[in-house]
């Protein structure tokens, strides 16, 4: 939730503007912690630094102090400068009673920017003739204050200096409301009393409350401006001051004694009676503070005349209020009224210290002499679920247990009470009953439970494993391995087992490579790159050897290299007897190295294998001098490097011998004529041999093909078997 810095309303997260007042909710505004002063996000309720609760109305960018919006009285001294502009947190709908709380006696404070006229502050809050209903709304503490206020003419709060913002109505000329006559008279009398008090002011030991003295109470009596007296007279009291919003300081003000009628109390005393002890401007040394005289207590004479004559009336002891008069509470006049003796019930009376709960004192109904029905008591309706928990009560199918009445204790005579012994040492029946309320407790189940608990754990039988699950988890991997091994080994012992073992299907890409090789002339140079790992050497060595044998028979010059560190080593394992071969070694950099290779063989970073790289092997200086580029690769990426980096730069045809696993990914390059030929795996090698017209009839080649055929057959069979098992289980499951 995001709390509005203006009105404090909680808004949904992500809101841009407050739903209540429309104030912008931005990430730029910050909430300042009132405890530690650390800035916090606006949506925080508690400070991130100290954990104090954040005041939603305090903003970091506020240059002015916000106006008092709470329940506390304004604490600013009278001579403190009042902010000229309206505080940011000011709300437009502040009631008048809150206005009054803001204003300090004699302080030049500006009222909040509201549409309502300035409240009447130069006169204390006059009492309201609320009649019977309104009389209940006036709180007692307010009545006390009114009773203690001295009736002086100067008891008028000096209104604050008002600097109306543009466009707002003038608050110095409030709307003339209907002011009761008695209120007008009160105002006039107050002015007279204040004037008289000033003239007859007696110098006292205590520091008098002057106009410059900071005053806390908004009801303090201060001399009012002459031109504002009329405003004070006409300002209506629009709303009563709710008791719950008035500060404790005001409520705690000691009430002065009601002065006798007609007697005007001294203004100083009157002020002191209402005001709390004045705050000195300078805190002197402790010695001087100790010499501060105490505040004289409120006296009855300090009561303002208007409070005595009009409005709430303070009754004397024993005096009755007249019709229409508001009764003022005077606690010191009325003695404490004793409460009537209430009828204490017997059960409560028996709990008194020293007393004992005796059945006799409870009445005959509790003594076991009478039944509740005879005693006139109605049995309460106990819910069914609670009834089941009644101890000792027999359930359906159970043997009812006779309930016995308690013989002693406070439950003497009560039947069906929960026995203490049950809680400590419950019987087996109680235990079984407590386990499950809904389960029917039968003797058979109880016997079974007792027997099971009594049997030893060693006699427990282990659960039998499910046969199919055991086979699946343990037998299937063994079966698969056995079949594969058999498929590979059997052709060694049973040659010719596989029908058509030496008949490989035709392969157009392989035959295309064969054609390319057949077109070479003796003395031509072929670049052969071994770009595979030793892991796939068993698959690629054989087709590579077939092609290399053809190249050797053709009498071409062979340049060997590799884009992998193990490539030259793999190439060196072949039999190069009688061949014109130069091993250029490892070419680092992958596609970057191939890009360099297009610039020239001598310029490439070929490391050589077993010796330095000759300057122009077989007179070849660049790839353009090579008739065929043959790459033996196990990765699609390698083929792509050759096609992208070399095939686009030189016109030399590129052919590939690849693993059967990557043939589908490499086929597009052959289909787009970026590869002159493609041989994949053993079958591709056999197809190349058939295309070159030199089929191999060696026994080991036949065995290898037969083993591969059987292995493929086993894998295909496992796939079919797995589907049969899967669907069979589903059909059986549906039927069951």
């Amino acid at each position, binding site marked *: 939730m995001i709390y509005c810095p203006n009105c404090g309303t909680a808004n949904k997260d992500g809101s841009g503007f407050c739903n209540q007042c429309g104030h912008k909710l931005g990430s730029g505004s910050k909430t300042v912690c009132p405890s530690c002063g650390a800035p916090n996000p606006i949506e925080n309720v508690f400070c991130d630094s100290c954990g104090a609760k954040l005041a939603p109305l305090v903003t970091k960018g506020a240059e002015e102090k916000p106006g008092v919006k709470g329940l506390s009285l304004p604490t600013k001294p009278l001579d403190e400068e009042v902010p000229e502009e309206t505080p940011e947190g000011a709300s437009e709908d502040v009631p008048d009673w809150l206005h009054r709380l803001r204003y300090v006696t004699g302080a030049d404070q500006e009222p909040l920017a509201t549409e309502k006229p300035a409240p009447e502050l130069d006169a204390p809050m006059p009492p309201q003739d609320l009649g019977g209903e309104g009389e209940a709304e006036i709180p007692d503490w307010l009545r006390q204050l009114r009773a203690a206020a001295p009736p002086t003419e100067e008891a008028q709060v000096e209104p604050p200096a008002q600097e109306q913002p543009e466009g707002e109505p003038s608050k110095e000329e409030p709307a003339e409301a209907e002011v009761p006559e008695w209120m007008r008279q009160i105002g006039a009398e107050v002015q007279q009393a204040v004037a008289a008090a000033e003239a007859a002011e007696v110098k006292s030991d205590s520091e008098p409350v002057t106009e410059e003295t900071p005053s806390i109470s908004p009801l303090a009596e201060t001399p009012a401006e002459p031109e504002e007296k009329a405003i004070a007279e006409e300002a209506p009291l629009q709303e009563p001051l709710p008791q719950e919003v008035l500060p404790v300081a005001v409520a705690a003000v000691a009430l002065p004694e009601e002065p006798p009628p007609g007697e005007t109390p001294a203004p100083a005393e009157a002020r002191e009676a209402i005001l709390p002890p004045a705050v000195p401007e300078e805190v002197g040394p402790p010695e001087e503070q100790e010499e501060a005289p105490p505040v004289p207590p409120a006296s009855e004479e300090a009561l303002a005349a208007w409070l005595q004559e009009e409005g709430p009336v303070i009754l004397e002891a024993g005096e009755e209020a007249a019709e229409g008069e508001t009764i003022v509470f005077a606690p010191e006049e009325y003695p404490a009224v004793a409460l009537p003796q209430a009828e204490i019930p017997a059960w409560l009376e028996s709990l008194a210290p020293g007393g004992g709960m005796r059945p006799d004192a409870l009445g005959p109904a509790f003594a076991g002499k009478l039944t509740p029905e005879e005693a006139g008591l109605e049995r309460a309706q106990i819910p069914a679920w609670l009834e089941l928990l009644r101890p000792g009560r027999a359930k359906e199918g159970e043997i009812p247990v006779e309930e016995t009445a308690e013989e002693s204790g406070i439950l003497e005579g009560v039947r069906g009470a929960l026995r203490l012994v049950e809680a400590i040492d419950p019987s087996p029946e109680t235990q079984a009953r407590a386990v499950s309320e809904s389960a029917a407790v039968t003797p058979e189940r109880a016997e079974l439970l007792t027997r099971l608990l009594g049997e030893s754990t060693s006699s427990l039988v282990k659960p039998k494993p499910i046969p199919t699950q055991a086979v699946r988890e343990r037998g299937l991997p063994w079966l698969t391995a056995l079949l594969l091994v058999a498929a590979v080994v059997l052709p060694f012992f049973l040659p010719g087992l596989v029908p058509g073992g030496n008949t490989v299907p035709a392969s157009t890409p392989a035959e295309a490579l064969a054609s390319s090789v057949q077109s070479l002339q003796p003395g031509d140079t072929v670049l052969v790159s071994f770009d595979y790992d030793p892991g796939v050497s068993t698959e690629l060595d054989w087709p590579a050897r077939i092609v290399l044998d053809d190249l050797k028979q053709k009498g071409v010059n062979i340049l060997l290299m590799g884009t992998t560190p193990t490539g030259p080593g793999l190439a060196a394992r072949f039999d190069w007897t009688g061949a014109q071969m130069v091993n250029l070694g490892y070419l680092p950099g992958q596609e970057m190295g191939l890009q360099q290779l297009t610039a020239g063989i001598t310029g490439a970073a070929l490391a050589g294998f077993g010796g330095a790289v000759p300057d122009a092997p077989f007179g070849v200086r660049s790839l353009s001098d090579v008739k065929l580029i043959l790459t033996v690769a196990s990765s699609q990426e390698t083929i792509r490097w050759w096609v992208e980096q070399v095939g686009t730069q030189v016109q030399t045809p590129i052919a590939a011998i690849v693993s059967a696993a990557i043939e589908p990914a490499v086929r597009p390059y052959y*289909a787009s004529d970026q590869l002159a030929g493609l041989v994949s795996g053993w079958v591709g090698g056999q197809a190349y041999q058939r295309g070159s017209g030199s089929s191999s009839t060696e026994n080991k080649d036949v065995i290898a093909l037969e083993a591969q*055929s059987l292995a493929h057959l086993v894998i295909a069979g496992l796939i079919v078997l797995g589907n049969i098992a899967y669907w069979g289980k589903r059909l059986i499951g549906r039927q069951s």
Partner: protein
Amino acid sequence: MKGKFGRSLVTAITISTGILVLVNFFVRNDFLRQVQKTLLDWAIILAAVALILGIFNILASHARKIQNKKSGWPYSLFLLAAMGTVIVLGLADPRGPASPSVSWIFEYVQVPLQATIFALLAFFVASAAYRAFRVRSVDSFIMLIVGLIVLLGQVPIGQAIWGRIADAKDWILSYPSTGGARGIILGAALGAVLVGLRVLLGIDRPHVE
């Protein structure tokens, strides 16, 4: 490189070198080609240095494992011993990896071991074939049929089962499979072009921390 200036400098270097290498593919200029060759030489050297750094990293990690006696430290000890042996033997002989000792190790130790590891895949594939190729929908059924055709069409026994299985396999690899593979390759290539352009334009700076 921290700091705004550092990031900008790295980005500027990346963009300038990338453009220099790229322009050489469109403009034939000896000077640009020489610049491109120099930059590619530097890149190849860095790739080779990365290989050496990998060796040092392996040395450090396994040495730490041996020192702390973590679980499996004997295998780390054997690895470092084998690596050290091959390096020493290769450096001791001027022929380097072509020396008889290194060649012997490569021929009779490395190649058989790697081939054995690769051969284990066959058993895993066979075991997975029992569970993986289960027909649960029309697409999986088509995939199953195509897989069986290609699997058996590769070997002679397939022709014994169905005489035209080889043609079917060839058709599958030439048309549907090629079409799908082309789509994947084109998509990957376009993605690589886009990533390269983003790096050249400085939008993506993965090399800058």
